[in-house]
């Protein structure tokens, strides 16, 4: 398998880069070029496998005894490999623009290639040990990256929560694979595929897998670490974690639920669908109310992971009921969204990094007017923002459209519970889409539009070329992915057929080669290219006509603003004020948001204060409560450290007598 050896070599390059960077500080600058090289090779191999559909396998005599390390690169892992290495490539190119003296530290650069390699290894692994080994390695390396700014207590807190949650997830996956492997310990995936687990075990395995992968992907209520950890890391790493690592979580779930666990039962669909929908909506509600640029992006990652899980759940439901084509639509939606999200989320995080780099600020209310100070970044970020808001003709909408199509197929489902769930899901998806638009209009409007709110924002400058190239490439991908949705879907068709049993109509069956067809062309067609063409023609025509007939003169003047133009940019709408209507409508329900206005007494010219209080119930129930319980219990038990020797003897005596009594009563 020369191809696999190529990947191996690339992984070795990554490891070597890490080693070099650890050894000498001078080698730090070599990391990203080497990472680019490796990502290119790995991506090429994955692409080759994805396009040709061959399955590469190999095994090394390391890892668990007698099982060894099984390696396998099939179309599924290849697809995710393309996603991952694309992200790695973009992040590395972006990082070429980092300042060698100022930005490169031994705390980040040695770990970046390790992180990339670990993610690739997860996809390659074909036995439980190898999978979890690399999975945990992935968490570990990213943990070290999160805590890179270690003097900041916030990032220490974030990294602690992150790794604990990651280990909880890994433990869940341990259970999942334990259940799959059975008491005999058949840990290699082909052994697992050979025999399907019985229902009781399957249920436990599914639950464990959902917890394990959900905690890595940020599925509510296992999400709380994500908005803390992703922003804490350096921006290009945030891009990887949000854009790519969450996809590894998706991969894990797909691998277990669609491949290893055998033919699905219909109720498998419910947990991912319900949790996913809740995640999608709540994630955006968090995002809409947050004021930190990178944290908003992290929350929107949670939302998108939710969407993907919904799509996967639908695919399971359809497949379990034998509706192969509907399953194919849902699965295609999921996979395409994986691809698209990896693109625009990486783009947005890199953009946020650029903003952070240029202004040193992450708080939306401290930015503004960047569209003039950093024009290129502004354009790229705009593309990303529109794409993630699922607006045509960009790529976000393609997967969104397919998702709605699969929701539309819901009435076919025989099970009442699913029938009831699916329309509710549809409503929540629509809500999520609308909220996403609101969220990113808010982000873009406050950060890039309007007037600069701080000196830093006013003095910002556009970022180095390498970073612009990285962002530009991703922006281009977002546009192309929007226009070429149908060809992309047809590339995925074989993969989708393998795991859903059905496939979309061939891309030729639509009116034009660019038409994306769900079910059949008489039923639903989305042709981004044609619509884009229409819009382009229409706007050109308008432009020409208007410029012909209309008065061309344009005058610059102070803003009209209903007659009282304000000199200071402070009076602009801030992110918080933009969120106020949404907070009133949704926040009062979800976070029991309260606004308390304290007015100065009449005649007093002091300032009035507006206090907003939000309650994060999820945090309270799922994090604060258990954590507090553990600490309290630890405090209680601690008195056992301070007993007297005689009391310890008493314990010993009690143990002896109890055991003796047991022996006495048992025959």
């Amino acid at each position, binding site marked *: 398998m020369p191809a696999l050896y190529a990947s191996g070599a690339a992984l070795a390059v990554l490891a070597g880069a890490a080693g070099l960077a650890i050894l000498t500080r001078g080698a730090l600058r070599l990391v990203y070029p080497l990472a680019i090289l490796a990502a290119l090779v790995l991506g090429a191999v994955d692409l080759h496998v994805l396009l040709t559909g061959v399955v590469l396998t190999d095994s090394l005599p390391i890892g668990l005894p007698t099982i060894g390390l099984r390696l396998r690169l099939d179309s599924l892992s290849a697809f995710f490999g393309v996603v991952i290495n694309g992200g790695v490539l973009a992040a590395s190119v972006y990082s070429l623009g980092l300042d060698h003296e100022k930005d490169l530290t031994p705390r980040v650069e040695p770990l970046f290639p390790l992180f990339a390699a670990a993610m690739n290894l997860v996809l390659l692994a074909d036995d439980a040990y190898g999978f979890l080994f690399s999975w945990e390695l992935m968490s570990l390396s990213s943990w070290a990256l999160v805590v890179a700014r270690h003097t900041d207590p916030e990032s220490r807190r974030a990294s602690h929560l992150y790794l604990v949650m990651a280990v909880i997830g890994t433990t869940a996956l341990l259970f999942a694979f334990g259940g799959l492997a059975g008491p005999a310990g058949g840990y290699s995936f082909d052994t697992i595929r050979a025999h399907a687990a019985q229902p009781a075990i399957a249920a436990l395995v599914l639950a464990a897998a959902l917890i394990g992968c959900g905690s890595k992907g940020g599925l509510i209520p296992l999400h709380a670490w994500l908005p803390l950890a992703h922003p804490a890391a350096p921006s290009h790493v945030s891009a990887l974690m949000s854009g790519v690592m969450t996809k590894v979580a998706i991969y894990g779930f797909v691998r277990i639920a669609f491949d290893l666990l055998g033919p699905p039962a219909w109720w498998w669909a419910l947990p991912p669908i319900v949790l996913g929908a809740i995640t999608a909506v709540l994630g955006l509600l968090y995002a809409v109310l947050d004021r930190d640029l990178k944290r908003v992006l992290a929350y929107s990652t949670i939302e998108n992971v939710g969407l993907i899980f919904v799509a996967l759940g639908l695919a399971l439901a359809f497949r379990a009921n034998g509706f192969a084509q509907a399953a194919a639509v849902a699965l295609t939606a999921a996979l395409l969204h994986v691809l698209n999200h990896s693109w625009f989320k990486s783009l947005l995080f890199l953009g946020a990094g650029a903003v952070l780099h240029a202004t040193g600020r992450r708080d939306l209310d401290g930015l503004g007017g960047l569209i003039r100070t950093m024009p290129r970044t502004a354009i790229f970020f705009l593309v990303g923002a529109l794409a993630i808001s699922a607006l045509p003709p960009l790529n976000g909408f393609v997967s969104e459209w397919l998702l709605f199509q699969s929701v*539309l197929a819901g*009435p076919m489902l025989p099970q009442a519970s699913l029938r009831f769930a699916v329309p509710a899901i549809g409503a929540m998806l629509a809500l999520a889409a609308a909220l996403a638009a609101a969220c990113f209009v808010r982000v873009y409007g406050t950060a890039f539009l309007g007037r600069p709110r701080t000196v830093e924002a006013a003095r910002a400058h556009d970022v180095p070329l390498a970073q612009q190239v990285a962002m530009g490439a991703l922006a281009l991908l977002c546009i192309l992915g929007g226009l070429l949705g149908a060809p992309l879907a047809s590339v995925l068709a074989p993969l989708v057929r393998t795991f859903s049993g059905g496939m979309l109509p061939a891309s030729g069956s639509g009116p034009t080669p660019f038409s994306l067809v769900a079910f059949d062309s008489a039923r639903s*067609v*989305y042709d981004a290219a044609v619509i884009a063409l229409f*819009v382009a023609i229409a706007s050109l025509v308008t432009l020409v006509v208007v410029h012909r007939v209309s008065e061309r003169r344009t005058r610059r003047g102070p803003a009209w603003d209903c007659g009282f133009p304000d000199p200071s940019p402070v009076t602009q709408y801030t992110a918080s*004020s933009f969120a106020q209507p949404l907070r009133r409508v949704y926040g009062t329900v979800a976070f029991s948001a309260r606004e308390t206005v304290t007015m100065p007494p009449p005649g007093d010219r002091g300032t009035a204060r507006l206090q907003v209080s939000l309650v994060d119930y999820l945090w309270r129930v799922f994090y604060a409560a258990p954590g507090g319980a553990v600490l309290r219990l630890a405090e209680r038990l601690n008195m056992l450290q301070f007993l007297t020797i005689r009391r310890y003897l008493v314990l010993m005596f009690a143990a002896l007598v109890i055991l003796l009594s047991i022996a006495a009563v048992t025959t």
Partner: protein
Amino acid sequence: MTRDLIVQFLAQGAQMFLVLLLAPLAVGVTRRVKARLTRRQGAPLIQGYLDIAKLLRKESVLAESASWLFRTAPYLIFALTWVAAALVPSFASGLMFNWAADVVALVALLGAARALLALAGMDVGTSFGGIGSSREMMIATLAEPAMMLIVLTLAIAAGTTRLAGVADHFIAEPLAVRVSLALSLGALVIVALAENARIPVDNPVTHLELTMVHEAMVLEYSGRHLALIEAASMLKLTLYLSLLICLFAPFGMAPASAGLVGWTVGLVAWTAKLLLGAALLGVWEVSIAKMRVFRLPDFVGVAFVFAFIAILLAYLSGGDIG
């Protein structure tokens, strides 16, 4: 064959310009009806055209802080709305590009236009722009899901998401009074009011009022840019009216590949229904008062509830889609 193709193409083009042509008239009708009902003389029916022409002739004043986005947005908004409006079957269902008129895509196109408008509203960096944009997006988060649910309901009933297909379906089997459809109609009306910034959600004729939404966003626009925005909002109104028509009163619409005769009949019927709808809107607007902004959620929420019940019924009755 080619001739036929050309005819088809022309027909499609005709629809595209037809909506553009009739949009100001529809608005004129609404205003006229309102004026008459409030015992005013009222502007002539063609006032819409005159406004746009006048705005086009004026020079446009840009705020110093306006960026390129502020200047390009109007063209895109207009184009997006125009395309969306042109995609809704008006006089004939089976036009050349009818397959491109996917309901989901349609909603998304309008969403794109809205997002651009909201961004433009924030571009200058004034408090009013912010007010408008934030409220617009808040309303959208309520209206868009409702809209989506409505179209999904109809799509389930008709077994397709092609607007033309839905229209054909309802032409073929005359509109049986089904609860889910009735609810959808109610919901769609409310959404249409909200989306077009009509009373009670917003008042299209006022300024300098803290409750305004749409007008606050476009406050900084003038000259040709304002003309385009105004035209776009007129188109949007027409779009919703003809959407209502095509979904709930498709009778008279010419089937696919009907000859010129069929098309003319369809055209007359459609125009009549459009103007009637505009008039009804006028009546509605004079007979109800503007709401406070933060009562809107309740109002638009009603649309959401209607739409949700509708789709629920559609699902539980197990649509024949698939």
